[in-house]
Each structure stands twice: as structure tokens, then as C-alpha cells.
């Protein structure tokens, strides 16, 4: 038991040394920053959290707001390709109480994370693409490449060029909620509400899924109205639409209060999926999201989301859930040092299951594309009906490198 902190300290030292070495060699910067000769922080408050410029860049088909490029990627230099890897050390301490009997375990692991490959850009005027392909490590010397998201976007189909009023996309992608789960600063703890799926199927609101959508942005309305309407056939693709399908609708309005963004988003995600017991579960998720920056220092970013979920057939019974999260990101030194925290909660009404998760962390960037973080996460999963309570504490030390 006493060896665990000692080992962790050694690994921590190794991680810091790795970052120091990597920093000296980090001359390159990731894809878009390299293409447009700007720092990563042009589009990110802290990678991967997008700032307002990054959000406009993304919705304009991964090209600068106000522009509609026509040059295909094969004519562009440098090559539109970047890699991100994020190894980490994780110490997990779990205490489980079942039927009054308490057991505990400790585990220290190194998670190499693999390598995420990204390529994106314009193919022709009004046409762009995005592809994310992680290469996972499945065992000693074993690597498993996969395609996480790939989409074709038709940009600026109506309205002035570059203002993103009306666009269309098709492929396997994440639907644009106010807080997509791939743009959170928290690395070690998932959003609990996004992972909630009692039917055990594949339809998850925040996961990449095969879909077609109409989306856009109106900078003309206050400081920007964003929308998306999509039809999806589930995350795996190829599923017949009569057993798996969902519709998604999102509206989000941004207003600047003394140049501090305030956002309100509303969303609905509903459809049906084939549950594990081979019956159809009609489900829906809806809720709202709020984001506010403090208008004085503008260094505090508060986020909140509420979700209500209904599934009509979970082993023959209807099940409802209320959940959400409250997050705070604080920018201590621009482009350098950040602290953050988030509280997640899920209440399943029929089973009385309650999940509460607290996460806090610090992040330091040695260079725009090289950062290190330390996180502490505590999850309490209590299911009185089953007489079980599991408390998990994760301590994570990781590195993020993009090139």
C-alpha cells in the first residue's frame, strides 16, 4: 500500500520530464493553427474548449469566419494533417458496499492513449470535410485504427458567403449541442448524462452517429443564433431505420454582455432503438444549457446543463431520469494556466439510483500545443434497490501533445 504513492511520484516525475523534453522539440503546431499561421488559442480558450471564434470557425466548415474558400486541400501547404496523443497515469481507488459488506481496491495504470489523427479542410467552394481517426492501443504491440467521425459539409448554401447561415452535412459526426463531449477540459471523467442509456443500445446523444443535418449560424441576430436539425440512424451505422432512428433539434442564442458571452441553448433528441431484450424502446432526451462568462474579469466561465430523459420500455417498465452538470473554468494566465471543476448528477426516478460526480483539475501549457494536467475525480454511484454503493476516486496525471 505504501508503495503506491512512491510509484506514483516516480511516474509523475517521469511525466514532467517527458513534457519538458517534448516542449523543446515542439516546433510544429496542429492542423488549423499551422494552416492559418496562428496560435491554438485563436480558437480555443483552452484546448479543446472552443471560444467564440472557434465556434464560428467550426460552423463555417472549418474555414475562417467571413470566408468561403475554394482551394482544395491537395493544393494547400502545409498538409492538412495533425496528430494528438494524450498519455496519462491513473490511480483508481474504489470502495464498494454491497449488502453491508465493504470491499476496496487500488489500481495504478499507465494509459498510453494511442494517437488521434485529424484531417480537415476545403475540397471546393462551399464544400469541406472533417475526419478523425484514432489509432488505439489494444495490447502489447497491437494497434487498432478506427474512424471516429467523418463528414462532408456543404457550406454557405444561402446568405452571404462566410456567414454560415445555411449548411448541410452528412456522415458520422457528433451533433452540435452547446457542450459537445469532445470539447470539455475535463479529461478523466465523462459527462454522466451523455453516457446514460438504460436500454443498452447504441443511441447516445453525444456520441458520433450516422446522420444528416441542416445547421447554421446567424450572426445578424443579437450576437448569433445557432441551430441544427438532424436525422440519425444510431451510432453504428447500417442499422435499419425501423428499429433505430432519432431526430435532433437544437437552438442556441448568444448575447454579449459587455463583451462577455452569455448563451442559452435548447435541445431535443428523440426516437427509438432496439434494446438489449430485443424490444423497441421509444426514448427522448431534452433539456437546456446555459453558459456565462463574468463580464468584469471575463476569466470565469460557468456552464450548466439540465437534461430530462424518458425511456418507455426498460425491461417492460417506463423509466425517467433527471440529470445535469455544473462546470467552472478559470483562466489564470492566458494561453498558460487554467483551473477547472465540474459537478455531474444523475437521478433515475424508478430505481432511485443516484450518481454524483465531482471533478477538479489544473492545466498548464508549456507551449500552445503541449500541456500537462492533474485531475481528481470522485464518483458516488448509489443504487438503494440493489443495496449497492460504489465510490470511485480517480487521480490522473496526463500530457496532451498535438503536432
Amino acid at each position, binding site marked *: 500500500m505504501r508503495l503506491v504513492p512512491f510509484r506514483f511520484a516516480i511516474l509523475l516525475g517521469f511525466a514532467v520530464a517527458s513534457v519538458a523534453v517534448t516542449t523543446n522539440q515542439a516546433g510544429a503546431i496542429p492542423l488549423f493553427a499551422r494552416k*492559418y*499561421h*496562428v*496560435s491554438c*488559442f*485563436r480558437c*480555443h*480558450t*483552452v484546448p479543446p474548449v472552443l*471560444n*467564440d*471564434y472557434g465556434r*464560428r470557425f467550426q460552423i463555417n466548415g472549418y*474555414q*475562417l*469566419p*467571413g*470566408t*468561403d*474558400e475554394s*482551394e482544395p486541400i491537395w493544393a494547400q501547404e502545409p498538409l492538412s494533417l495533425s496528430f494528438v496523443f494524450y498519455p496519462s497515469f491513473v490511480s483508481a481507488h474504489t470502495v464498494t458496499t454491497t449488502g453491508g459488506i465493504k470491499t476496496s481496491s487500488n489500481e495504478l495504470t499507465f494509459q498510453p492513449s494511442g494517437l488521434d489523427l485529424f484531417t480537415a479542410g476545403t475540397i471546393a467552394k462551399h464544400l469541406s470535410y472533417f475526419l478523425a481517426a484514432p489509432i488505439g492501443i489494444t495490447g502489447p504491440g497491437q494497434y487498432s485504427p478506427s474512424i471516429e467521425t467523418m463528414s462532408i459539409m456543404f457550406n454557405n448554401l444561402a446568405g*452571404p*458567403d*462566410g*456567414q454560415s447561415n445555411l449548411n448541410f452535412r452528412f456522415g458520422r459526426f457528433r451533433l452540435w449541442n452547446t457542450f459537445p463531449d469532445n470539447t470539455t477540459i475535463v479529461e478523466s471523467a465523462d459527462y454522466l448524462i451523455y453516457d446514460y442509456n438504460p436500454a443498452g443500445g447504441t443511441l447516445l446523444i453525444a456520441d458520433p452517429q450516422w446522420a444528416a443535418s441542416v445547421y447554421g449560424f446567424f*450572426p*445578424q441576430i443579437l*450576437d448569433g443564433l445557432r441551430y441544427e436539425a438532424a436525422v440519425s440512424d444510431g451510432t453504428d451505422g447500417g442499422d435499419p431505420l425501423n428499429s433505430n432512428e432519432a431526430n435532433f433539434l437544437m437552438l442556441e442564442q448568444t448575447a*454579449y454582455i459587455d*463583451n*462577455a*458571452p452569455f448563451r442559452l441553448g435548447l435541445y431535443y433528441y428523440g426516437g427509438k432503438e432496439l434494446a438489449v431484450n430485443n424490444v423497441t424502446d421509444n426514448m427522448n432526451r431534452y433539456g437546456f444549457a446555459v453558459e456565462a*462568462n463574468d463580464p468584469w*474579469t*471575463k*476569466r470565469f466561465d460557468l456552464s450548466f446543463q439540465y437534461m430530462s430523459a424518458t425511456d418507455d420500455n426498460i425491461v417492460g417498465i417506463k423509466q425517467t431520469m433527471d440529470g445535469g452538470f455544473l462546470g467552472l473554468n478559470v*483562466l489564470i494566465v*492566458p*494561453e498558460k494556466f487554467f483551473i477547472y471543476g465540474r459537478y455531474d448528477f444523475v437521478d433515475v426516478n424508478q430505481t432511485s439510483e443516484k450518481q454524483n460526480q465531482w471533478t477538479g483539475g489544473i492545466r498548464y501549457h508549456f507551449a500552445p500545443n503541449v500541456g500537462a494536467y492533474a485531475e481528481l475525480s470522485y464518483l458516488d454511484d448509489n443504487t438503494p434497490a440493489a443495496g449497492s454503493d460504489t465510490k470511485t476516486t480517480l487521480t490522473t496525471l496526463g500530457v496532451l501533445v498535438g503536432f
Partner: protein
Amino acid sequence: MKMKTKVGKFTALVAAFSLSLALYSCATSFNGSDQVSVARGKAVYHEACAPCHGDNGDGSGPVSVSLRTKPRDFKLGVYKFRSTASGELPTNYDLLRTINSGIYHTAMPSFAQMSIADQYSVVEYIKTLSPAFSDSSQYPLDTVRISTPIPYTLNSIERGREVYLNMHCWSCHGITGEGNGPAAPTVTDDEGHHIQPTNLTHYWDIKMGRSPQKIYLIFSTGLNGTPMPSYAQILTDKQRWDLANYVYSLSHKDRFYDGKQLSNMH
């Protein structure tokens, strides 16, 4: 003779009237197209520029807080990168060039993919954000003429090094040009924000002067709003070219600390 004079006066009167009419109609139509351009510029600005420069152009857009090099405050009408004399406003072309090319080592990207008409409309709109541009006392602008360059030779670089030392450039930029001079920690801009003197040995740190011509222009215009002065009245044309060649040599890693490495130069 009298008849001729009368005819002459009449012709002159008609000509003057016609010219006035033509100028008036031109001015009216130009004003009209200007207003269209400004309106278009405002829409483009709101989409592409406001996240950093702010809705009202004061440089405090929502993105600005996370940037170490703060976006320009357009309300002040003070611009670093110009082709005009020290303290003067930039020309339309200066503003257009910054939008088109971006500024290296900052968050300001190149908007070359934006149509030239849109870029120009943004220039027109930005000019409405500061009263300085409508102040007639600011005109005409005195643009700096770039003279014939002095060849980039060892002798010129050596002379430039002497100028660098004599003019105390090192007090901010450091003896080795690495931006670490004794005054560097206390350098501020006109708004009181600390600014880091450019590390002249890092090619990628240099925002605008990436050729001897552009470095010469900076020495001639100065950087308004910062302690970097114009040397147009202090140094001769030849000295400014020598200094430009020396600074260019620093950014290309031909370092000459106290002349010790000059022998390596070919």
C-alpha cells in the same frame, strides 16, 4: 476684344459649373457607395472580427481575454504597422495589407480567402470606429518612401551592428537581440500593458519585419503606441538600411556577438 472676353467668361462659367456638377455627382455617388461599403463592412466585421476586437471595436471581444497579445483597439486610431510617418494614421492599403496578410506570431490570421471587396469594406468600417479618421487635420498622410536598398553584405551588417549599439537598441532588444535587454521587463505600450520586446533572433517571433525592406520601413515609421520610435529624423537613410540588414541577419541566425562570429559570414 470685348466680345471675345465675354465669350471667354461665359465659357469659363459654363465649364466651372459643369465641373462643379460633375464633382458633386461623383461625390454623391462615391458617398453612396461608401455607405454601402461601410454597411457591408459592419456585417463582415461582426462575423469575422468582433469575437476578438469586440462589438464596438475596443479590442475586448470575448476571445481577447485568452490571448496574450491583445487585439487592437480600433477606437484609438493608433496602428503599429503603417507606411506613414510616426504618429500618423495608416493608409487604406496599410489596413488592407494587415487584413490580407495577418500578423505573424499573433492570433490575427490572414483573411486572404475573403473577397477583396469584403476586406476593403472592413477597412472602411474600421475607419468609422475612430474619430481620428474623420479629423481633417490628420491629412494629408505623409507616406514613407522606401529608398534603394543597400546590399546585404558583411560590411553593411557590421555597420548596422555599430548603429544597434550606439542607438541603444540593446536596452530593450538585448545585446544578443534576444529581446532580453535591461529595460525589457518594464516596457509598456501607451495603454500601460506590458509588451515584450521582439526576440530578433527568432524568425517566427517577428510580426511584420521579415525582409530588410520591411525592417527598414519599421525603423522609418516607428510603431505607434509603443516605445519603438521612428529613426527617420535621427538616422541617415544609409544607417537605417545597415541596421535593417543587421536585424535581418539576426533573425537568420547569423549572430555576431561583439563581432566574434563575423568570420563565419560569406
